[in-house]
C-alpha cells in the first residue's frame, strides 16, 4: 500500500452572501482543522483546494486519505467565510479526479 494515498472530495458550498475565493476557503478549513485537531493531528493532512467555482459553489479538494474524515468534519463545521454564511456539503469522495467526474 502506498504510504500517502490521496483522496479527492467533490463538494458544494451553499452560501448566503457575497462569494469568496478558493484561498479564503482553504484558509478557513485549515484554521478549523487546527482548532479541532491541533497541530500534530493535521501535520500530514496535505489539504489543497484543486478547483472551486465561486459562482456555483462547486469544487473539489485533495487531502491525505488517512485524514479525510478530519477534513470533512472540519469543513462541515464552518459557519462563515469572510462574513458569508455557508453550508459545506460533501458530495462524493474518490481516489482519482477522473472517477470524481463520473
Amino acid at each position, binding site marked *: 500500500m502506498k504510504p500517502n494515498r490521496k483522496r479527492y472530495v467533490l463538494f458544494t458550498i451553499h452560501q448566503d452572501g457575497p462569494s469568496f475565493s478558493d484561498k479564503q476557503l482553504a484558509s478557513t478549513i485549515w484554521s478549523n482543522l487546527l482548532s479541532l485537531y491541533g497541530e500534530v493531528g493535521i501535520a500530514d493532512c496535505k489539504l489543497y483546494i484543486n478547483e472551486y467555482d465561486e459562482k456555483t459553489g462547486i469544487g473539489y479538494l485533495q487531502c491525505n486519505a488517512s485524514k479525510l474524515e478530519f477534513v470533512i468534519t472540519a469543513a462541515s463545521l464552518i459557519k462563515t467565510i469572510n462574513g458569508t454564511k455557508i*453550508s459545506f*456539503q460533501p458530495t462524493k469522495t474518490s481516489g482519482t479526479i477522473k472517477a470524481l467526474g463520473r
Partner: protein
Amino acid sequence: MPAIDFNVRVTDRDSLDSFADMASTLGFSGIVVPTKGEPPRGFEINNVTIYTRLDIKSTKLGVLKRELGKSRKKYSIIAVPLSEIDIANWAAKEARVDVLTFQPTKTHHNLRGSTARLAAKAGTSFEVSIAPLLNVTGLTRSKLIKEYRESITTACNAGMKVILSSGASTPIQMRSPWALNHIGTLFGLNTQYTEDSISNHTHTLLRENVQKLGDNHIAAGIELVSRGGDE
C-alpha cells in the same frame, strides 16, 4: 434510505418553503419542525415530507403531564429537553415521549445513567442538535464537544438510540446527512451508526407515530382493519 432532519427550528409557516428547498438540495427526504396547527401525519413541500414536533419545556411535572396529554395527538414527535431529575426520569420512561433532547445552555443538564437506562427500556431516543457547535470556536467548542461526548456515551452505554439533528434556525445552518455523519465522529459515534440513526431509526419512529395517529389505530399491535358495513 434518505435521511430525516429531526430538528429544524422553523419559526413561521412562510419560511417553511425555504427550509424544505434546502432540505431537498441537501438530500433529506423529510424534516421535523416545531410549527403549530399543521397536520401531525405529515405533508409534502417540494418532495420533502414535513412532520411536526413539540418541545415541552416545563420545570413542573404536573404541567408537563398536562401538556403531553393535550398535545400528543397534535404532533408527530414529542420531545422533552433534559432538565431536573424528576422531570427527566418521568419523561424517559413515558411511552408518549419520543425523544429526550440535549440542549447546552448555562444551566444545562447532562444525561444521567439512571435516566438513560429508563429511557432505553421505554424506547425513548436521545436527540442532539449540532447548531450550538456552529456558533462557538476554540476552548468553548472544546468544552461543548466534551459535554456532548459524555452524554452520548452515557446514552449509548445504556442502549439508547442517538439521533443527530441540525437544530438549524436558518436554512443555511442545515447540514447534509453526510456532513452530520462526520460531525458525529467528534462525539465518538461512527459514521455507520449515525447514518443508520438519521435514516432508518427516524423513519421507523415517525412511521410508528403516524400509524398511532391514524383513525384505525386502537392500541400497540391492534388496528381496525374494516368497520361493520364495509365491503
